[in-house]
């Protein structure tokens, strides 16, 4: 099945516009840990637009947007009131406020739908991207768009274009203000960038974006687009400007991927297309899941690998120092069984194998010994270990028989050399010699 210009152009455009608009705004919600607030607003603007519709009996965008903006601000104020009067945490307050307002909206819409046929609850809740065509040409779809006149463009596309432009301009011009208000609201307010006012402005933008998105993806799925692209981008960078850019790019692909996934992909198996809004949200969630798994710094895979690398490096170090201590007390070599008896780390076989692969130890027939390389590494570790013990006893006044375990951990910190602090004593608190530092190169 191919994409048809008439069938798919506007739904696809709408999907992309909604995705990038919500994706950009979502950054500030995620950063201020207000994702739930985004959810609340996307639900509680519902009574706002229904009331606006009932009062003015028009679906014109301006009226609905005004109703939504007011409802958005009312939500934020109510949440704050419930939080302070009820003395509950803000997530509880948000939960109470938005469910009540949303329920009110559903009631109103059901009442209103009896009298006004063109207010459709399904459309507002679940989104009907596909119906963007319906307004232009209910009977013959392909015929209409071949003319491609401006008047045939569905009004929702205009509304989305305008809203997304405003959102991008707003975030662009107020980038530094939104950043400081989110990062340090107290300083922000004291400098005259009123953090609360900026907060409301952000919420109004979220409310407007939500309304503009209603008919495309529905109120329920807006939240996925507000949270997922921003959260995914956050995993990939430590710079806010880069994060904003990435979130928009990710959102863009959510829009395209979701729409194609809903319309084209099922067609490959001869199946009917599925709800595009649902597919977009699924793609957004999927990308976030992938990000959580494979992000270079914050992903679980990277964390797991780092952890594994650390554990195995520490185990090798422990093996080397054990062999060094054996050599120090007279034994030249150490049998596997002797080592095994005092070993508490990960599997000894593997540690020995990786240590000998790195040329740190020699395994000849059975007993183990340090190679020159291994000996140098062990000396450095023992040096730091004993210097740390010296430091802990002298500077931190810890009894000499309590410092070994702490020094055992501290010796692995490469960045700090205790010698910089305490000089080069010859012996540790137990009277053992402290090896000198190896000169580099």
């Amino acid at each position, binding site marked *: 099945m191919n994409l048809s210009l008439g069938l798919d152009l506007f739904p696809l455009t709408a999907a992309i516009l909604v995705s990038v608009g919500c994706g950009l705004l979502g950054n500030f919600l995620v950063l201020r840990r207000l994702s739930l607030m985004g959810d609340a607003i996307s639900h509680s603007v519902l009574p706002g637009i229904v009331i606006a519709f009932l009062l003015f009996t028009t679906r014109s965008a301006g009226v609905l947007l005004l109703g939504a903006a007011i409802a958005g601000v009312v939500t934020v104020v109510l949440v704050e009131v419930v939080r302070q009067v009820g003395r509950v945490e803000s997530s509880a307050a948000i939960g109470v406020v938005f469910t009540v307002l949303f329920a009110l909206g559903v009631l109103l819409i059901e009442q209103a739908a009896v009298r006004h046929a063109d207010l459709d609850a399904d459309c507002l809740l679940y989104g009907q991207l596909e119906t963007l065509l319906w307004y232009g040409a209910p009977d013959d779809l392909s015929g209409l768009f071949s003319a491609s006149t401006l008047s045939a463009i569905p009004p929702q596309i205009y509304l989305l274009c305008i809203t997304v432009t405003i959102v991008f301009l707003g975030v662009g011009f107020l980038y*530094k203000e939104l950043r400081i208000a989110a990062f*340090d609201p107290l*300083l922000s307010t004291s400098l005259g960038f009123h953090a609360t006012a900026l907060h409301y402005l952000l919420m109004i933008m979220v409310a407007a974006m939500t309304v503009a998105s209603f008919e495309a993806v529905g109120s329920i799925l807006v939240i996925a687009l507000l949270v997922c692209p921003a959260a995914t981008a956050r995993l990939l960078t430590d710079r806010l400007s880069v*994060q904003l850019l990435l979130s928009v790019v990710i959102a863009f692909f959510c829009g395209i991927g979701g729409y194609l996934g809903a319309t084209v992909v099922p067609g490959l198996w001869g199946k009917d297309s599925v709800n595009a809004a649902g597919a977009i949200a699924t793609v957004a969630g999927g990308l976030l899941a992938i990000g959580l798994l494979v992000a270079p710094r914050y992903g679980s895979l990277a964390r797991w690998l780092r952890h594994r690398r650390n554990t195995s490096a520490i185990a090798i170090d422990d093996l080397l120092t054990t062999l060094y201590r054996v050599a120090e007390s007279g034994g030249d070599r150490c049998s596997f069984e002797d080592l095994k008896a005092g070993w508490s780390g990960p599997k000894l076989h593997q540690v020995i194998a990786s240590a000998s692969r790195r040329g740190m130890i020699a395994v000849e027939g059975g007993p183990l010994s340090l190679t020159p390389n291994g000996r140098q590494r062990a000396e450095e570790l023992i040096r730091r270990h004993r210097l740390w013990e010296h430091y802990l006893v002298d500077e931190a006044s810890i009894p000499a028989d309590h410092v070994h375990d702490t020094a055992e951990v501290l010796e692995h910190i490469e960045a700090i050399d205790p010698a910089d602090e305490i000089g080069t004593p010859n012996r540790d608190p137990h009277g053992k010699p402290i090896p000198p530092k190896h000169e580099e190169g």
Partner: protein
Amino acid sequence: MTVSFRSKGQRSVGLAEHPEHSALSPLSIHSMTVAYHRKPVLWNVDYDAPGGRLIAVVGPNGAGKSTLIKACLGLIPRASGEVEFWGQPHAKVRSRVGYMPQRETIDWDFPVSALDVVCMGRYRKIGWCRPVTRKHKAVAMEFLDRVGMADQANRQIGQLSGGQQQRVFLARALAQEADLYFMDEPFAGVDAATEEAIVEVLRELRNSSRTIIVVHHDLSTVSTYFDDAILLNMRIVAAGAVEEVMTRENLHKTYGGRLTLLSEAAVNLARIGDGAQPS
């Protein structure tokens, strides 16, 4: 009608009606009361800050030290009273008043670099809707350099140590180039070396006739670090030069029975170190 007239009149007159407050003072607080949930936190505070001094705000937990600063800056509402800076309301002199909030209020996971944070100190000078340019960053870099953090400029702030973080926030305060500073526990969670470095910077500021008001926890260093002290426990118990204010009775009044023998001894030792007679 009368009520609205009176409150309007009071506001426009400001502190000019109270001749005990000088218009030259960087900070004048007149009978300020602050309440949370109808419970007073600060009660009838009157204070004039002398110019060009390093001033410690000292008091037990919950004494209202942070609240005093926030109420002065209009960050929390005052129940009553007035605050003026050089005889003017805060809104007119924002760029002359610097602020370093408590470190607990900061989200350390936020995606900003040390340099970004210092740039925030310049935002007031940059103005609304204008971007931070390379020129502003170069200026911010100089302030980072002054606290010895230039080599960490591009690190995300959460990856810095506690001491480094406080240096960055000090650099941000410096970047505000204010004449009066409020600092909420700048020594919290820093190592001895950083504490020394911060004190050194504060002294430089003071020597260039800035006024610095610092919430401080460690009684034993008050008299070595600071010129003046405000002893606070809901009310101002005493305020003035440290050698006059940091007396045994005043501390007892401020801390109630909660002052341990050790911290009392520390205060005494510090005074002996300064060459004063133990009280």
